[in-house]
């Protein structure tokens, strides 16, 4: 028998020095993930490596597929079989997964997709950070569809948001994207992992009616009349509930339909179910915002430099604050809108040429000036650069 390395155990209830990718794998196991399909790609590969070691020890299954497309497909197939399932990738692989990601959104099959963003476009800068996939996480697959994406800034947050990604995917029956970046994926920090019992785990709504009464995409029993944002109950394949799942526009019984009101209802319901849950999903980790005159909006790895810049600005007497959304999709529109009405200016700090800043501008709706500070050369911006940009926004000479 071959030598097997010491097991990595999920959620041991003690502090450990972990890489972001390691915290992601630990979070997935703690959330109940029991299937992973992936394909090697920098900077997310460590997640696949760890899952290949941990899953069979937890009675789960790992497979390295022939490509990124197949990995996304296998994850959906496994989820239909009742397993919580995840894949992890980076820019080029995220592009390849988009068609099947749309399939999961349309057929309401829960799954988690990790994208550790790297420099782009194309093959770009494989070992360097970027946040160029923000809009792809929202609109990457064709057609109108809901999107949920979480953005961690610390290694502890990677663990926390990985668990939240699974719980959200299951509760809403929708794919959830954990949008990391190379900074957070490869950074090491001390993390206090919770004990297994301390992790809140949510399972998909399973049928409350016998197979004869089950309508695969109908409202759950007890849903209020006229509910147009419901999450249907989901039967695992092979449990006596025989039904059809298709990427074609489908009726409540799962079978394909043509154009008309039923098609309209379906596409609108999918977006509504996520919009309805948006207030519960919203989680903004803000610093010094209450009395802020100038607001910095930043997320993921970039927010680490932004936070330092905000503190430096305070030392210089500038009333700056950091608004850091961890749920970027759905975008916290109302929170930004109300802050925009109070502050004198907003600086959006992100590793791209202006993506989430577009949403911030929409929310600010002209109430205050919105500027963006971005970097796309594969280097995380320094706090001093952010500070300079912030001082320029305030009108001070830099």
């Amino acid at each position, binding site marked *: *028998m071959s030598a*097997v390395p010491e*097991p990595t155990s999920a959620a041991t209830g003690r502090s450990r020095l972990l890489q972001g990718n390691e915290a992601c794998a630990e979070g997935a196991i703690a959330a109940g993930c*029991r*299937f992973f*399909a992936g394909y090697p790609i920098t900077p997310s590969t460590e997640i696949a490596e760890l899952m290949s070691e941990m899953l*069979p*020890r937890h*009675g789960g*299954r790992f*497979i390295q*597929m*022939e*490509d990124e*497309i*197949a*990995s996304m*497909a*296998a*994850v*959906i*197939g*496994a*989820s*239909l*079989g*009742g*397993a919580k*399932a995840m894949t992890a990738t980076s820019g080029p692989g995220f592009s390849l997964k988009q*068609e*099947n990601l749309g*399939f999961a959104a349309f057929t309401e099959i829960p799954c988690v997709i990790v994208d550790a963003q790297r420099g782009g476009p194309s093959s770009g800068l494989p070992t360097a950070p970027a946040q160029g996939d923000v809009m792809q996480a929202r609109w990457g697959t064709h057609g109108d569809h809901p999107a949920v994406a979480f953005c961690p800034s610390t290694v502890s947050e990677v663990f926390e948001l990985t668990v939240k990604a699974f719980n959200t995917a299951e509760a809403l029956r929708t794919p959830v994207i954990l949008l990391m970046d190379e900074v957070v994926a490869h950074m090491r920090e001390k993390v206090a992992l919770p004990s297994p019992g301390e992790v809140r785990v949510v399972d998909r709504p399973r049928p409350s009616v016998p197979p004869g009464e089950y309508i695969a995409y109908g409202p759950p029993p007890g849903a209020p009349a006229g509910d147009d944002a419901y999450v249907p109950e989901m039967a*695992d*394949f*092979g*449990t*006596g*509930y*025989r*039904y*059809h*799942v*298709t*990427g*074609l526009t489908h009726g409540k019984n799962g*079978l*394909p339909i043509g154009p008309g009101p039923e098609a309209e209802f379906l596409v609108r319901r999918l977006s509504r179910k996520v919009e309805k849950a948006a207030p519960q999903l919203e989680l903004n980790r803000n610093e010094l915002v209450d009395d802020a005159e100038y607001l910095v909006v930043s997320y993921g790895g970039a927010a680490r430099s932004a936070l330092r810049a905000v503190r430096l600005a305070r030392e210089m007497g500038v009333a700056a604050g950091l608004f850091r959304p961890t749920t970027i999709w759905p975008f916290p529109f109302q929170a930004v809108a109300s802050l925009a009405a109070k502050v004198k200016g907003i600086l959006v700090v992100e590793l791209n040429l202006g993506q989430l800043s577009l949403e911030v501008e929409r929310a600010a709706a002209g109430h205050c000036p919105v500027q963006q500070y971005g970097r796309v050369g594969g280097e995380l911006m320094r706090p001093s650069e952010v500070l300079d940009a912030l001082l320029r926004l305030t009108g001070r000479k830099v």
Partner: protein
Amino acid sequence: MGDIHRYLREYYMPHIWCPGCGHGIILGAVLRAIDIAGLDQNNVAVISGIGCASRATGYVDFCTLHTTHGRALPFATGLKMVRPDMKIVVLTGDGDTAAIGGNHLIHAARRNIDITTVVFNNSVYGMTSGQYSPMTPTSRFATTAPYGNLERPFDLCALASAAGATYVARSTAYHVRQLTTYIGRGLAHKGFSFIEAVSQCPTYYGRRNRLGAAPAMLEWQKRNSISIEQAKDMEPAEREDKIVTGEFVNQTVPEYTEVYAQLIGRLGRQGESR
């Protein structure tokens, strides 16, 4: 043999297949093979990609999954990994399997994962109205081969065999009893089984190549089919226009999900002894 109508979603008929299409005959063979095998209807998943053949999943009363173009096998792989107790059948067409899904075919075969794949090979992309596929013979006409096809077709059974499929057979819509037998053996086989079923598309492929209506195309399948034994004694040039029917591979090799289950068992025992 029972009544195969119980495996059909008749409330979802009529189907989309054209009059004279061979796909209904092949689907009938699949259902008869499932019936003869006595499989539990609740424990069978039928998975397809995109194309005329792949619409079959809508018409059959199992757990059915109509996926994206070419990707039925990786969806099936994920399901089989977490539900090794289920019988997984993939129904697919020649464009779906040999073109966009070609990579998935060879890797599913290589892993020897327990999935039965039936390819409805009508030599053409029917759903999009008759473009040439990797299975269109050289010099035949299609809407995207108006001067005759310049490419060479695959020998799909040879491809599956070379990639490691552990049961490989070919038959035709005309030889429906033989086809049913082969599908049945594929279902009984532990490992990746691959059955190519030659179908006819009178609407697009037949009309453009002046092959006549469906009966004439079925006659052609009858006249041009030869057994593996007959093919052995023929020169390659003689075999060119022939359909070689029979069982090409039937061997026992460890099945992927069983090997994975053994790994889980091994790790579990180590955990207890620690």
